């Protein structure tokens, strides 16, 4: 017996100028595990945000159990039995497991008497049902990440949801815990619950799911029963045809080795045994799916989370990067992923942002030289074609693309040897994207060694001279630039091409 729990027709969602969803069709039956697959930026998280009521769609219809739904908010979604388990558990660290579960699930009046016995019993029961060996008394701060994830699952179970969305639930689980999770998912299915399961692990999808839908560029490009398609077929759907975008090509061969990593790892961030070289004049792309460890490599190289194993060599010299100051002193520059929080200080003028990393060089006596600062800012504004009202305009007044240029300018001013760019064109309109690509290639031409981290597969393939594909905290393969997207995706997913 299968009835339709959820039906999405022609869902459209735009964020500013970006079309995140362009007419997505999706449905979920009762007692089904329906996998959702797609590369980063394909629209999966947007879809989830709409189903959980966090964002409202700009077009299309949502039907829940044959009833059309006009408007979804987080509260009404919860009330209608939709639960979501995210990658980051959102628990209260100072409270016990039982209390966290209770806060999530109980509806209460302020002066209500708390029944600790029933709270404990319920928590014990839920935890037992998912087979988690966690005592309900434990404070959440004493639990590991995977254990916290299990508590989240217990919450979802306890909420009696009919639709459970799981966003990469096994990403941080050990083998044993993964099997626990699979058992939970099968249990849910047996009870008629519909599970939307987002995962990059193809073997998981084949083991667990009944159907799989692939999203690409904001559209659903295929829904198949799991038995009707194979890995190659899925990859083909994910990647599609070559997107005919032209990327600026390298005009000369790479030079000497600038950066060399051997067996580098950082236990805290889950990175291990990473080895690769980057040469002057080369763009080394770091590809892989979210959580593969690419930003973690950048943070190691920039001294934010220092490595505890392996060796990093810069321009022939072994270096120990323990802080961002160390990194900058050695000529490493990092344009971070979170532009608004780390890349640019929105409340400060453009000029201040641009000179922020070069105080020792530009103002050697610590005395500020406004003229020199303004000149420098104007130079970069001109060279990078930043659209602004002037160097005194605040960072927050610029568009995403222009903010990215300012973040870039800040680091270019340090005349680095190695430039690490983390998602440089994320949230940037197509015009600025093309400009930024030209700038990056131009920088490489001038002899800079560039590491380009990007979740945009065509961008990584098109821009890089070589591509390091990461997965699960380690480097899986090094492929030449311009490789077949199929090959790159297969490497990222950890399957044979």
């Amino acid at each position: 017996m299968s009835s339709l729990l959820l039906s999405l027709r022609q869902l459209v969602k735009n964020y500013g100028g970006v079309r995140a969803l362009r007419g997505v069709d999706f449905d979920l039956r009762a007692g089904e595990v329906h996998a959702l697959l797609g590369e980063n930026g394909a629209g999966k998280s947007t879809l989830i945000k709409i189903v959980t009521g966090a964002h409202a769609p700009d077009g299309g219809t949502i039907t829940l159990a044959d009833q059309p739904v006009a408007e979804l908010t987080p509260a009404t979604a919860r009330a209608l039995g939709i639960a979501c388990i995210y990658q980051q558990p959102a628990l209260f660290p100072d409270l016990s497991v039982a209390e966290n579960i209770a806060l999530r699930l109980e509806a209460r009046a302020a002066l209500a008497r708390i029944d600790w016995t029933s709270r404990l019993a319920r928590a014990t029961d839920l935890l037992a049902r998912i087979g988690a060996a966690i005592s309900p008394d434990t404070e959440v701060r004493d639990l590991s990440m995977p254990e916290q994830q299990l508590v989240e699952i217990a919450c979802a179970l306890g909420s009696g949801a009919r639709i459970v969305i799981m966003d990469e639930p096994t990403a941080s689980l050990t083998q044993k815990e993964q099997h626990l999770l699979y058992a939970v998912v099968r249990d849910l299915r047996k009870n008629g619950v519909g599970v939307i399961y987002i995962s990059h692990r193809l073997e998981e999808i084949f083991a667990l799911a009944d159907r799989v839908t692939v999203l690409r560029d904001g559209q659903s490009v295929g829904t198949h029963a799991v038995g009707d398609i194979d890995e190659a077929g899925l990859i083909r759907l994910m990647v599609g045809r070559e997107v005919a975008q032209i990327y600026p090509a390298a005009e000369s061969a790479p030079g000497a080795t600038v950066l060399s990593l051997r067996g580098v790892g950082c236990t805290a961030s889950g990175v291990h045994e990473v080895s690769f070289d980057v040469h002057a004049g080369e763009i080394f792309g770091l590809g892989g799916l979210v959580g593969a460890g690419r930003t973690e490599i950048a943070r190691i190289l920039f001294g934010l989370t220092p490595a505890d194993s392996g060796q990093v060599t810069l321009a022939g010299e072994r270096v120990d990067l323990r802080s961002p100051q160390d990194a900058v002193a050695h000529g490493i520059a990092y344009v971070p992923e979170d532009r608004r929080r780390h890349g640019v200080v929105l409340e400060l003028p453009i000029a201040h942002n641009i000179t922020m990393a070069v105080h020792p060089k530009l103002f050697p006596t610590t005395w500020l030289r406004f003229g020199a600062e303004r000149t420098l800012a104007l130079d970069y504004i001109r060279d990078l074609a930043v659209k602004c009202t002037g160097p005194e305009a605040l960072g927050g007044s610029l568009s995403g693309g222009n903010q990215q240029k300012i973040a870039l300018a800040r680091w270019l001013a340090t005349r680095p040897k190695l430039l690490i760019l983390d998602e440089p064109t994320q949230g940037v309109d197509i015009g600025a994207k093309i400009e930024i690509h030209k700038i990056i290639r131009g920088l490489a031409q001038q002899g800079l060694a560039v590491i380009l981290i990007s979740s945009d597969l065509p961008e990584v393939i098109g821009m890089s001279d070589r591509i390091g594909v990461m997965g699960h905290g380690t480097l899986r393969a090094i492929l030449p630039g311009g490789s077949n997207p199929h090959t790159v995706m297969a490497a990222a997913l950890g399957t044979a091409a």
Partner: protein
Amino acid sequence: MSTTTTSAAVCNVPGRNWSKVFTSHEMLLFYVLISEWLFFYFAGTSTNRRGGVVGFGTWDRQFDILRHSCEIGLLALALTPVIITAGIDLSVGSLLGLCAILFGKIWHDGGVPIPVAIGLTLGLGALAGSLNAVLITTLRLPSLIVTLGTYSLFRGLAEAITHGSITYTDFPENFLFIGQDHWLGLPTQAWVFLLVALAIGLLLHRTTFGRAFRTIGLSPEGARYAGLPVERRLALVYVLAGLIAAIAAIIYTARLGQAKADAGTGYELFAITAVVLGGTSIFGGTGSIPGTLLGVAAIAVLKNGLACLPVVMRLNAAEEMSGLLTGALLLIALTASVLPKILSTLRIRHHTSAPSTPQLPR
């Protein structure tokens, strides 16, 4: 959806265009200061039986205002960089007391010459400030509770050293000159105050240190990602605060001619009020020395002007009134500073989720 609204809210945060900051808030305060001064001039000046002018409108009184405002002014100067980094230092008033006692003891019991005693006291003040600095930057403890602890510790040490009763007096004439005499037309300590104001002003507005302070106050993580030495800069503001508190202690002792353990009690409130009045945001990231100076002036005029009003003189309640009004003034200034944000939040509330209650920083 929410991201674009947030960026709009950031851009509309009151007066964050730098040229505007220097004209709008300070100018407003300047007008308030002028009006306040004029009020006290007319209400607090009179002629005595002999036909001479007495009260607020005399040169003596104005110099007195200058003289009395130097200590609180110095503390306000010390607190401005601290508050700009989104921190707070509640211990400056207590440190003033401790340094005054230490100075008295070093000179009196140690028998060292005055300049040496001054030098040692300044060193000890910086050392005390570095206690705050180490706890706040190395151990990442919240500045609130650390300076609350040192607020008690420093005052307690001052009381313990003096056994609660010892007062150091009989300082030599050439020392008292600093606090009680004039030099080139102004009270001597005014020159010290101006010098420190100049130094801190230059540090804040004209050096990379000041830039770093602002950035740290706006976004400590953003500062870290830009390669700024966050811990070193934070340590500096607290050590500086200690040093300046020591300078204030010297001036206080010279002015009163005695060093007592209760020196500087309650000064932190006046200092914080001056800083906030002057336009420095209690949340960090913005602030200016000219603004702080105006704030100090406003409070000094208030304190001293009140003492000149006949009604206040009759009640002999100058200190109470000034404390009362300063507290009220701080509340008004704080409310006024957040009102625009609150009003705009209420307007866009139905588009985004409501921001949460501010809490003590982690």
